[in-house]
C-alpha cells in the first residue's frame, strides 16, 4: 500500500462491511409489514388451493335439493354440516369457495405469465434495439391501450367458447402493456450504462448482453409487475365470469358464484359477500406483496 492509501483505508473498510444484495433483500423483507401480510395471505390461499380435496368437507359439485340456500352456521337455521351454508342448488358453499381458489390462482398465474412473455420480450427488444423496432412496438402499445380490454375479452371469450385455457390466453394477451412500459424504459437506461459498453468491448453479442447483463437487472421489476398482474388477471377473470362470458357452471369460480348469488342477494346476502371477500383477500395479498417487493428492491427503499 502506498502512503496515501492509508487514510482511505478507514473509509474503504467501512464500506466493504456492507451487505450483499441478497442479504439486504432478506433484511428488508422481514422488516416490511405490508410484504409480510401479503405473502402470508398468498401462502395460505396457495396451500388451500393445493389441499382443496383434503380441506373441503363436501364435493363442490354435489347437489342436495333438500338443503338449498341454507344460511351459514352462525345465522338462524344454519347447521354445522354446512359451515358457510349452501347455494341455490344445495351445494356446500365452503367447499365451492375452497375449490374456487384453484380457478383464480390458475388463471392468475397463467395469464400473468402469458403477459410477461409478450411484454418483456417486446420491451427488451424495443429498449435495446431502439430505432424502428422501438417505434413499431410503441405504436403497438398505443393501439393496445386504446382497445377497450374488457369488452374485447368478453367478445372473444364468447366467440371462441369459454374454457379456463381460453380465459388464460385472452386475459394474458390483453395484459402485457405494463410489462412492456417498465422493461422498455429500464432496458433503455441499462443499455446506456458503461457495464454494457464494457461487455460489448469484450466481444459480447447483443444476445449475450441481453441475457447476461440486462435481464438480471430487470428481474426485480419483472417480479414486482408479475405480482400486480396476478391480481389484475384474477379480477379480470372474475369480471368475465360474473358477466357470464368467463368460467361456466358448474365450475366453482368466485366471480360466477357472485353472479349466481345475485338473484337472491337481498335475502341471502352471504352468497354475494363471501366469494367477494375471498377475491378481495387474494388480490390484496398479491398487491401488498407487489408493493412490498417494490419497496424492498428499490435502491433507496420507499421514496420519501
Amino acid at each position, binding site marked *: *500500500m*502506498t*502512503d*496515501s*492509501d492509508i*487514510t*482511505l483505508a478507514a*473509509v*474503504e473498510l467501512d*464500506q*466493504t462491511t*456492507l*451487505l*450483499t*444484495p441478497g442479504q439486504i433483500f432478506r433484511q428488508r423483507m422481514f422488516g416490511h409489514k405490508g410484504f409480510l401480510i401479503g405473502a402470508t395471505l398468498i401462502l395460505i390461499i396457495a396451500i388451500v388451493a393445493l389441499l382443496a380435496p383434503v380441506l373441503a368437507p363436501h364435493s363442490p359439485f354435489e347437489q342436495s335439493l333438500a338443503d338449498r340456500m341454507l344460511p351459514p352456521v352462525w345465522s338462524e337455521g344454519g347447521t354445522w354440516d354446512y359451515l358457510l351454508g349452501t347455494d341455490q342448488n344445495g351445494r356446500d358453499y365452503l367447499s365451492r369457495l375452497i375449490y374456487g381458489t384453484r380457478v383464480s390462482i390458475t388463471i392468475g398465474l397463467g395469464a400473468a405469465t402469458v403477459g410477461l412473455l409478450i411484454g418483456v420480450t417486446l420491451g427488451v427488444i424495443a429498449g435495446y434495439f431502439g430505432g424502428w423496432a422501438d*417505434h413499431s412496438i410503441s405504436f403497438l402499445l398505443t393501439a393496445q391501450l386504446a382497445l377497450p380490454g374488457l369488452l374485447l375479452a368478453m367478445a372473444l371469450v364468447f366467440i371462441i367458447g369459454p374454457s379456463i385455457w381460453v380465459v388464460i390466453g385472452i386475459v394474458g394477451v390483453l395484459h402485457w402493456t405494463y410489462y412492456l412500459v417498465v422493461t422498455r424504459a429500464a432496458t433503455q437506461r441499462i443499455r446506456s*450504462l*458503461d*457495464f454494457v*459498453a*464494457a*461487455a*460489448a*468491448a*469484450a*466481444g*459480447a*453479442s447483443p444476445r*449475450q448482453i441481453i441475457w*447476461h*447483463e440486462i435481464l*438480471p*437487472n430487470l*428481474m426485480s421489476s419483472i417480479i414486482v409487475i408479475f405480482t400486480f398482474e396476478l391480481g389484475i388477471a384474477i379480477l379480470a377473470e372474475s369480471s368475465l365470469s360474473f358477466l357470464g362470458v368467463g368460467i361456466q357452471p358448474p365450475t366453482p369460480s368466485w366471480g360466477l358464484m357472485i353472479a349466481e348469488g345475485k338473484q337472491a342477494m337481498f335475502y341471502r346476502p352471504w352468497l354475494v359477500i363471501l366469494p367477494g371477500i375471498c377475491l378481495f383477500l387474494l388480490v390484496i395479498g398479491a398487491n401488498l406483496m407487489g408493493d412490498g417487493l417494490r419497496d424492498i428492491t428499490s435502491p433507496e*427503499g420507499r421514496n*420519501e
Partner: protein
Amino acid sequence: MTALLDINHLNITLRSPNGPLRVVRDLTLELNRGEALGIVGESGSGKSMTALALMRLLPRSAEYQATSMAYDGVQLPDLEDAQFYRSIAGPRIGMIFQEPMTSLNPVYTIGRQMTEASVARGLMSAAAAHKKAVTLLDRVGIPDPEDRMSQYPHQMSGGQRQRVMIAMTLMLDPDLLIADEPTTALDVTVQAQILDLLDDLRRERQMGLILISHDLAVVAQRTDRVAVMFAGELVEQGTAQQVLYAPQHDYTRKLLAAVPRLDGTPGRPAPATPRVEDVIVARDVSRIYTARKGLFGPKRDIKALDGVSLSVKRGETLALIGESGSGKSTLARILLGLDHATSGEIDLIGRPIDQIPPTERAAFVQPVFQDPYTSLNPRRRLSEIISRPLMLRGERDSATNLAAVKEMMERVRLPIRLLHAYPSQLSGGQRQRVAIARALVTRPKALICDEPTSALDVSVQAQILDLLDELRDQMNLTTLLITHDMAVVHQTADRVAVMRNGRIVEEGTASAVLSHPTNDYTARLLEAAPRFETV
C-alpha cells in the same frame, strides 16, 4: 465589529437505516463582511451539509444543533420559519448550486424566476424588477438580456444557466453568497469564467462569499481563507497561503500531495529507445450522426468527428484532451468497436478494425470508463465480472479463469477476500480497480481510458493514476487517455492531442504542447486550468 457569520459547535446528524450518522461534528467557523472563505473536502466530508443547514435546506432526515449560529448578530436557529424565509433566505444569504441544468424551473421563463422573489416580497414593482433583472443579466455576461428574459431554461447552455442563477441571487442584494460546487458540472474554460465572475462580484459588492469545492486549486485561487473538512470535521483552517504552503494537518498534506500538479516539466521523460510500432492508427475518421426531432421531425446532421487522424505507438500514452462535446468519447467508442466511423480508416496493429472479429478485438484493446458506479453490473459478483471477458472468448475452464482473476486482483491491489463480493459493497476506488482488472484480464495491447478518474475523489484519483502508470510499465501497455484535466495530462502523458468540435487542433509531445502551445484554444485551456503556484 461583529463577524457576518459566526458558527460555533455545529453538529449535524443524519438518520439512516443503520442508526444515526454524524455528518458534521463540532464545526466552528467565522466569516467577516466582504471576506471569501473556501471550504474544501472530499465527498462525504460534510461541506455541503454545513451550507444546507445554514439555509434550512437540510433533508428531512437530518437534524442540527449548534451553540451559536449567528448571522450579523441574529441567532438563526431562534427565528421562526416565516421570519427566516422572509428576511434571511434570499435578501441576506443567497445560494447557488452545483447542477445548473436542473436548478432552474423548466416550466417558467427566466424573467419570471428572476423577478418573483423581489416582487412577491413587495420590494419592487414588476417593472422595476424587470429592469433590474436585465441589468444584472447583462452584468453576469448574458448577451441580449432583454430577449433572454422571455426564454426558458432549456434554451440555454449550462454555463449560461449558472450565470442566470448568479444574477438571480443578486436580485435581492444579499450580503453573503454561498456557492456549492458552482462549476463542477461545467467545462474548464467556462469554470474559469464563472469563478472570475463570482470573484469580481464579491469585490464590487463587498459581499461575503463561501465557496464550497472538492478542488483545492479552485478554492485556493479565489478565497482569502480556506477551511479543510474531513469526515465531518474541520481539520484545518487558515489563510489560503498558510493552508496551501504550510499545511498543519496530516490530511491536508496528503490531499495536497495527491493533487496532480501543473508545475515542473510536463509529461513523462522520453524513452531510451524511440517507439516505432503503431498500435492504433486512425486516418481521416469522421462520424456523422443524423438526429431527428421526434418521429417525423426534420433530419439534422451532427458532425461528432470531422477528419481525425492520429496514431498511438506501442508503450506510449497519448492524452486526448478537450471539453464536453469535442468528440473525444465518440472516437473512443469507435476504437472499442462500440460505434462505427462514417468514413475513414482505423487499424489495430496493422489490421483494419472492421475485419477483426469482436472477441479477437477484445484481446487488442479494452476500456476503462469514467463512472465506476455504472461500469460494473450490480447483479454479478467480482469473480464473474472480471472473468467475463475470458468466458466470452470461449475459455470456460473455471480453475484457470479463477487463477487469472486472482492474479489480476493482486495486480490491481484488490484484496482476494472481495472475490465473491458485489459491486455495491465496494468503494468508488475499489470499483475502478475492478474495472481495470476486467480490462486487463485478456492481456490486451492497448487500454482506452475515458476520464478514468474524474468521478473519483482527489486522493483516490492519485492512487488510480499511479496504478495505471505502474501497470503500463509492467505490461507494456499502450494507453489512450481521454481527459479534460490538464494536470492529469501533465503528470502522465507522453504525447497530447487537443480536440475541439470533432477536430484535432493541436498534437505533439506533452512537454511541447503544455509549455509552448501553438494553438489559441490550447492556450486558453491551459490558462483556465486551476492551479496553485509553488512559492
